[in-house]
Every structure is written in C-alpha cells, then in structure tokens.
C-alpha cells in the first residue's frame, strides 16, 4: 500500500508491505524494516533497527496526532486507494463537517463568515468560556456553508455552530 503522510508540515511518500509482524517500509525512497505489534487500541510497539518505540495515535477534536516518546506530531494520512473508493460512494453527510461548541460559552468573534473558503485547521469562530478564549478550527478544507450563530450569542456544549463542506 502506498500512503502520503504529512507529519509536522512535511509530506512523505511511504510504501508498506507486510510480512508477519514485520513491515517493509519505503520512506521517501529509503527502505526501513519495522517490527510492529499492537499493544492496546491506538498503541503500537515498534522496533526499528533494535530501537524500541511506543507510539500512540491521539485524536482530540479535529486534530490527529502521533505521539512518539514524549513528542507529539500532527499527522494526516492520505491513502490513494481509499480516495478512489470514497469518490465512488454516495456523497452523504460525510462531506459536511460540523463545528461544535466544546463547552457552554459566548461567541466573541466570527473569523470566517458563511460563504468563505477555509483551510483545514483555520480558525472559524472564537468562543469564550470560563474567562478563556478558544479558537474553533475548521476540520477540513472547504467552504463555510452554514453559520448558525452570531457574535455575542450564548452557546451550549455540543451545539453546532457552523458547517464546513
């Protein structure tokens, strides 16, 4: 399988071939043998050239990180094969991503009004709760389709504030 992996802003081309618990990885042209064993859900034990790593997959809201040792790397994986399969499947609710309020608070600013184009990770709305301001980011690249709140509005936890398509 061939993947396009973005880690901390850098894009890698990566090919994986499995042989038992051993994987032959071709990372940007160089070959690396990785022994990988799942220890728990979202946790893998890797041995690469005798070095042992515990790696964790961490998802908080719209962010996806891979944690290696103490270091956290924002990571996205593109699988060309599943891209094809997704295109052929009916475009349902999956194409629309919602931005929900993480906790009750007040909308203090709208950064991307309805109709504006946003990148993944771009701030859309700023809410204030417990005297702290929090920027809610777009979960994907797209267009802000719906903005259900205005500046100054009180919002409940879980309330959908905007939709990005």
């Amino acid at each position, binding site marked *: *399988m061939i*993947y396009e*992996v973005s*880690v*901390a802003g*850098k894009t*890698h081309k*990566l090919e*994986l*071939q*499995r042989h038992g618990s051993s*994987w032959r*990885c071709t*990372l940007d042209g160089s070959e*690396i043998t*990785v022994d*990988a064993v*799942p220890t*728990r*859900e*979202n*946790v*893998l034990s*890797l041995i*690469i050239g005798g070095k042992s*790593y515990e*790696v*964790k*997959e*961490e*998802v*908080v809201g719209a962010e*996806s990180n*891979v*944690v*290696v*040792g*103490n*270091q*956290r*790397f924002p*990571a*996205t*994986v*593109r*699988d060309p094969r*599943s891209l094809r399969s*997704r295109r052929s499947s009916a475009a349902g609710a*999956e194409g629309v991503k919602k931005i929900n309020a*993480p*906790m*009750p608070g007040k909308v203090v600013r709208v950064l991307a009004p309805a109709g504006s184009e946003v990148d*993944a990770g771009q701030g859309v709305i700023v809410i204030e*709760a*417990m005297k*702290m*301001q*929090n920027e809610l980011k777009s*979960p*994907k690249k797209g267009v802000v389709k719906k903005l259900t709140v205005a500046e100054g509005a009180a919002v409940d936890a879980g309330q959908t504030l905007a939709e990005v398509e």
Partner: protein
Amino acid sequence: MFNKVLIANRGEIALRVIRACKEMGIATVAVFSDVDRAALHVTAADEAYLLGPAPARDSYLNIAKILEIARRSGAQAIHPGYGFLSENPQFARACSEAGIKFIGPPASAMELMGSKTRARQAMQAAGVPFVPGSSKGLALGEAEALANQIGYPVMIKAAAGGGGKGMRMVASPADLKSSFETAQSEAQRSFDDSEVYLEKYIANPRHIEIQVLADEHGNAIFLGERECSVQRRHQKVIEEAPSPIVDEEMRQRMGAVAVQAAKSSGYANAGTVEFLVDGERNFYFLEMNTRLQVEHPVTELVTGLDLVHLQLRIAAGETLPLSQADVRLRGHALECRIYAEDPDNNFFPSPGKIRRLIQPSGPGVREDCGVYEGWTVPLDYDPMLSKLIVHAPDRKMAIARMQRAINEYFVGGIKTNLGLFRRILANLDFQAARIDTGFLDRLLSVPADQAGASHTNNLSNTAAIAAALFSATSKPGLNGTVKTSNGNASQNEASAWKKAARTEGVRER
C-alpha cells in the same frame, strides 16, 4: 470511631477519603450529581445517592440535600474534602445542628480565618509575623496615608478574598485610587463584600506553608513544610516537601508560629498556615486554610503519616497519637497536578472523553487519580484529573523520578498539561530550586525551545511510519480520505490487523 462517613465531594479527593475509611473499617457514603453517576468515587463507595443536576449549587453545594442523605443513610460524620463546602462555616454549623460530626475545624475558627482582616488582627494579637500593612478594612484616604507610610509598591486585597480575585498591585501613588476602586468593585462582585485592606508588596516571594494538626483537647503539632512557589494565576501547579530553602532552624521557627496561629484561633483537625517568604528568608503569615489541602500527599510521603486517618481519629475525639518529637522527615516528595487543559491554547479547559489512559507506576510513585479510561470529564467542575506524586531520597532524584513517571503517563482523547511538567522539570532554575511565585509566568513568557532538532527529525520519520501503520491497521471502511478521526474506529485491533493482512494478500497476488 465512626461506623459510617459521608463524603461531600467528588473526584480524586472523594476517592482518597473513601480509601482511608475502608482501611479503617468505616462504611462510606458517596453523593453525586447527574453527570457523575459513573464517576470513580460512586463505584468505590459502599452506598451512593443522587444529589441533583450538574451545577454545583444544585448538587455538591446543596447543604440541605447532603444533610438529608446523611440522616437517611445513617452517616455519623461528613468529610468535606477540599473546595465545595469544605471552608463554609454555615455548613459546619448545620452539620453540628443535625447531630452529624463535621470532619474539620469548628465553624468559629473557619469564620475567623475566612476573613483576612480578622485573621490578621488575631495573628497580630498572637504575635505572629505578617506582611506589614493594615489589619482592617480601609477607606481610600486611609489607604493613601498608609501606603505613603509603608512605601510603594503595595498590594490591595479583598478581606473575603481568595484565588487572586480582588487583588491589585500598586506601584506608585498615581495608580492607587483607580486600583483601589477596581479591587473594591471586584471584591463586591466576587464575594458580595467590598471590604479591602492594604499590605506591603513582597517582590517575588516564595510560597511556603506549614501543615498543622490539632486535636480537640488542646494539642497541636506541625508536620513540616511544603513549598508551592510554582504557580499560575495564584493556582499551585507543582508542590514539594521539604522546601529546598528551609533548614531545620527555620522549620522550627515557622512551625512554632503555625502552631501558635492554630492554637490562638481555637483550631482543630488538619489545617495549613501559608507564609510568604522574601529573598532574605523572612517569613510572613499569609492565611490559614481550614481544610485538607490538595497537596497533602507530599507531606504524607516525607512524614510517613496518613493525614486522612488522622483527621478521622481527631474528629472521633481521640487525642493526637503522636508528639512533635515523633515527627521525622525523610527524603523528598514532589506533586504535579494533572489538569484537563491545553497549555498551548491559553490553558483552556479540555473536558471530554478519555479514550486512552496509560498510568505510571514503579518505585516511589503514587497517583491519586479521579478518572479512568472511558470516563468523560464533565465541564461543570474543576478540570483536575489526577495528582502524580513521587518520593525519593533527595530532591534531585525526586525530579528524575517525576520525569520518568511523566514520560510513562499518557492521556488520549483530551488535552492535558503533562507537557508543561516536562518543561518545568527540565528547567535549570527549577532544578536549582531558584523558584518564586513569578517563576512559571517567566518560564511561559519564553516560547518552548525546539531543542534537539536532529533528534526530532529522526523521531518525525518514526512518526510518519507510525501514522501509516495506524492507517494500515485500522478498519478500512471507517476511515476518511484524510484520516482525522478514530473516534469509533478500531474497536477490535486484532481483526483490523487481520483485515489489513488480507488486503495486503489481495494486492500481492
């Protein structure tokens, strides 16, 4: 001793008290709000009763309801934990009127210490050193005269204050009027009491506190000190015992003053006398906390005592089972308060579901934790998840042990301040104990260094491989094109692996 105790609290402290009760053969009654039905303290207790809706005023602050549950369940005593009703004299009084023992000091001592100006008056009468300034509420004119007399900078503080509210530093006479008025209105808003007083500003003080223990027969001892200088917005972040700057002579002097403060206020049970310590190691009475403190475990580890056991015994009318000479300090202890908050986003609270929890263990590690994997941290209460505490022969090894334990710790699904502890523990000033209450703000004003770039680069390749492996081994149908969510994916890792293997098989043919 009591047969049954109700714990009027939640989270790790409720569990802490339940554990102590179990060890002493005491039955436990938990109370909980709507959102805490599945909380650890509920499952750990022998009995559990619903208080009401999530907001604290409808649940953990509902005095009438808590007393009704105590009566109905036959609890003889109530442990208030910290926060919520723990320092509310009305609650202590209502308990005694209901014939239920409040595990803490008498209401009168709580009232005295709850008013900073009254406490200062009492300490003045008892000859306890305190920060120069007034011991009563002031009008603006009086404040101006006093500030000129003791010299700028000065602090204006709310008499009913706490947590930094109603508190203003004034650098020069020109700013006094506006700061005074702001502090007054903030005090009125926060505490429904606009009384403010003034004291000398101590530059970069250390925060050092003495644990005291008093029985109801006039005996009082102290259990050494804790240093809590690593603070953010007047909230403690790391605590340790003993303080690196307190020697035996200073400890004895501070302890004598703390015991004197407890005795002169008619104190009983566990309490803490807080001091500010200046650059010349002069110490000044700040306030007395009339409850068990969050950071009590560091004292437990260096003294070998169990403070909750002792609280229960004192409340049951026993005399102190040890004398001052029996108190011996051994080694060094550190505590980190682990919060569901995002240090990279202004410490914004991060409630939500804990999807993965990997906890440290091994020699010298204690964790007082109030959460579990699968638990949803509610947004209605303080976002503290856990207290990680280590004990080692000396401070250097305690820091190394804490670093080791923090590196074993992993919380997935919500943000935590674990990374902040890595930064503090690696800081050279912290390691050299050059800390004061401004330390953490100074540390946070500098962006985190990107040390070890080549090392990071190497790890980033490993991260790329790991990301692809996670993608390859999770359930195919559930992944989007861009993998951004695994919330419901890979319930069964083994079968996901099989599927990946099958996919591989198909491709290789």
